[in-house]
């Protein structure tokens, strides 16, 4: 028993002795410059050009690169080099042995390259390679197979791999957004549920607009959406199955029910219900049963949102005289106010990382999006416009989507990152409000 230890010690002693003593100059670098990383995403190549129902593989290769470029640029952390700025094309052999010198002349720091090929069963494989251009090191390599129609998902998955490897964060590009699409005049507003990819592609309406719909929310399993509808002139909570198109009422309560949201395991709904002049928060299994009442304070308790571990719920309440944010245990115990800043605070949403709560701040004639820690500290505003409200988190907890209203009544969807700097409009064919971000797709 003694000998191995001594051998080990001798080994370390040798290690220390061979390491030169602090004989070299040491330079501290404690300042830097943060800017979007120049990255080059040339058109993906193909071993042989083959046709697929979604176009030939050479065209798909260009489109895949475009989608990846657009995703990365949208994050605000990358600056894709315009494909018009270079003539270098990528051959199939280049994918595993890139021509680094030509990418270095473009000042690109990272290279995303790959291929699209058709498999024997008609599916396609998108190969995705990430390189450090300076050190010529491969940083990530992944392949994704899918039906040709879903090539965009493979591109988003590749962009997520790049983002994740270069930032250390989880990705969020392969995800969807459900929201309320709006059109028509102020008095005759038609509101329809719509769903689209995170980048606005694959846009589809889910309802026909006969009934007003509000506050759609994704289930963690992605298969279902819960929302409030005025069908039959009664505002009530529904669950909608995306795959089958079926929808069902959640409990047939006498009063109005609204502001629903799923628990992190997808098995429970929390929502508000108005009864006898008082609005409280209830919890109920999605398979039915009796709702459990969580709050009983006089006033309006609404907008509940679970913490990602399911142990707590944040909500808004006017019990103290003005609309403020509260946190309680998931069983309704230990209710306490956490927002004490200026103005009123509403629509709290717990980040999927658990570290922050996003909210709408109301004050000074404006609505703004802000974040605070779950204990109410570190409150800061991310947007400054006339009416920004209804925050929803990206799956990685780094970006918030919300809707921005104009004075004329128009509204559209925007996203902002946690620095508050990278603010972007999310393209929708009509006006949009009440966005809800899905979890990352499988």
């Amino acid at each position, binding site marked *: 028993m003694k000998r191995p230890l001594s051998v080990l010690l001798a080994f370390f002693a040798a290690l220390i002795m061979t390491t030169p003593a602090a004989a070299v*100059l040491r*330079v501290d670098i404690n300042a830097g410059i943060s800017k979007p990383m120049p990255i080059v995403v040339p058109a993906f190549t193909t071993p042989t050009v083959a046709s697929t129902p979604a176009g030939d593989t050479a065209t798909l290769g260009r489109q895949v690169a475009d989608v990846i470029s657009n995703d990365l640029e949208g994050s605000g952390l990358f600056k894709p080099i315009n494909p018009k700025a270079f003539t270098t094309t990528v051959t199939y052999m280049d994918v595993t042995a890139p021509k680094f010198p030509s990418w270095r002349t473009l000042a690109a720091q990272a290279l995303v390259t790959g291929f699209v090929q058709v498999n024997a069963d008609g599916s396609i494989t998108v190969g995705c390679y990430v390189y450090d251009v300076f050190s010529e090191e491969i940083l990530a390599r992944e392949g994704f197979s899918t039906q040709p129609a*879903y090539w965009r998902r493979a591109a988003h998955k590749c962009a997520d791999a790049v983002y994740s490897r270069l930032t*250390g964060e989880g990705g969020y590009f392969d995800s969807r957004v459900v929201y309320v699409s709006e059109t028509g005049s102020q008095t005759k507003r038609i509101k329809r549920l719509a769903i689209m990819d995170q980048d606005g592609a694959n846009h589809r309406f889910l309802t026909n607009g006969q*009934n007003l719909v509000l506050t759609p929310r994704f289930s963690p399993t992605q298969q279902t959406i819960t929302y409030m509808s005025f069908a039959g002139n009664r505002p009530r909570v529904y669950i909608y199955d995306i795959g*089958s*198109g079926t929808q069902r009422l959640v409990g047939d309560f006498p009063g109005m029910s609204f502001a629903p949201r799923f628990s992190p395991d997808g098995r429970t709904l929390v929502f508000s219900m108005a009864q006898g002049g008082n609005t409280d928060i209830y919890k109920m299994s999605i398979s039915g049963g009796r709702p459990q009442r969580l709050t009983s304070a006089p006033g309006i308790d609404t907008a509940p949102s679970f913490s990602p571990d399911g142990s707590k719920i944040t909500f808004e309440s006017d019990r103290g005289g003005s609309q403020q944010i509260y946190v309680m245990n998931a069983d309704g115990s230990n209710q306490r106010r956490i927002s004490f800043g200026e103005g009123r605070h509403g629509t709290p949403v717990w980040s999927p990382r658990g570290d922050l709560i996003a909210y709408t701040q109301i004050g000074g004639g404006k609505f703004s999006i802000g974040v605070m820690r779950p204990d109410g500290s570190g409150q800061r505003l991310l947007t400054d416009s006339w009416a920004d409200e209804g925050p929803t988190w990206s799956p990685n907890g780094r970006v918030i989507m919300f809707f921005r209203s104009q004075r004329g009544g128009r509204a559209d969807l925007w996203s902002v990152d946690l620095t508050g700097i990278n603010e972007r409009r999310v393209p929708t064919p009509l006006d949009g409000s009440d966005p809800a971000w899905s979890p990352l797709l499988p």
Partner: protein
Amino acid sequence: MTETRALAVAGTAHVALVLVLSLTWSLTAKDLPPIVEPIPVDFVDISDVPKVTAKPKPSIAAAPREQVEPAPTEVEPEKAEELPPEEIAPKDATPPPEPKPVEKPKPKPKPKPAQELSNLVDKALAEAPRKTKPVDFAKSIEQAIPASAKLDARAAATLAQAIRDRIYKCWDPNAGGPDARSIKTLLRVRVARDGAIIGRPELVGQSGITPSNAAYGRVARDAAIRAVMNPACSLAGLPPELYEGWKEFELNFDPSEML
């Protein structure tokens, strides 16, 4: 004997593993699991049977899922856990006083209370510990540099500042945000006379990695290496007469003071 054999077996196994890993470059693709495609419906009263207006989408045949071979991750050396907080060269470029031969200060008469203020200051200076400090400091620098380099403290400080001025513009310390602010990365860099980096900077160590920010360790290392390797921040043009001082040096990337 058994230890030797065990070592030999382990060594052979490791070599074999490295060989296998380096040869399997071919890509294994991961099947994207089918996701539910949304189907628009007409809104109906809850008593009605929901009307499906499109047929369900065909599902992608579930193929066996292969795991993509994980990208090779480099094991960060455990040594050099804590980076020494102080640097050899002072932060500002003001040259330290020239080292003076250490001589014992002559005992001086104690200043009388009635003495003039200027005299008092002069005497105090002569006996302050500050006098010996730069001497030790300069000595330590001299010892740290090979004799041929003739790199005194002033030159070392100038050199450090010159290197810092080149590198910082290419260092993006933002990865990970506040969570990664405590991660310090120490690199050792070898440079040719023309300023070209020889090989790749070597990771000497990282400190400040906690369970909550561990994912950012590799990103911090990459960002530091990228700063050194970036041609826009080349080291060409450093004083050739001091080459012995900059042919090999260490860079300590510390984002803790960033806003």
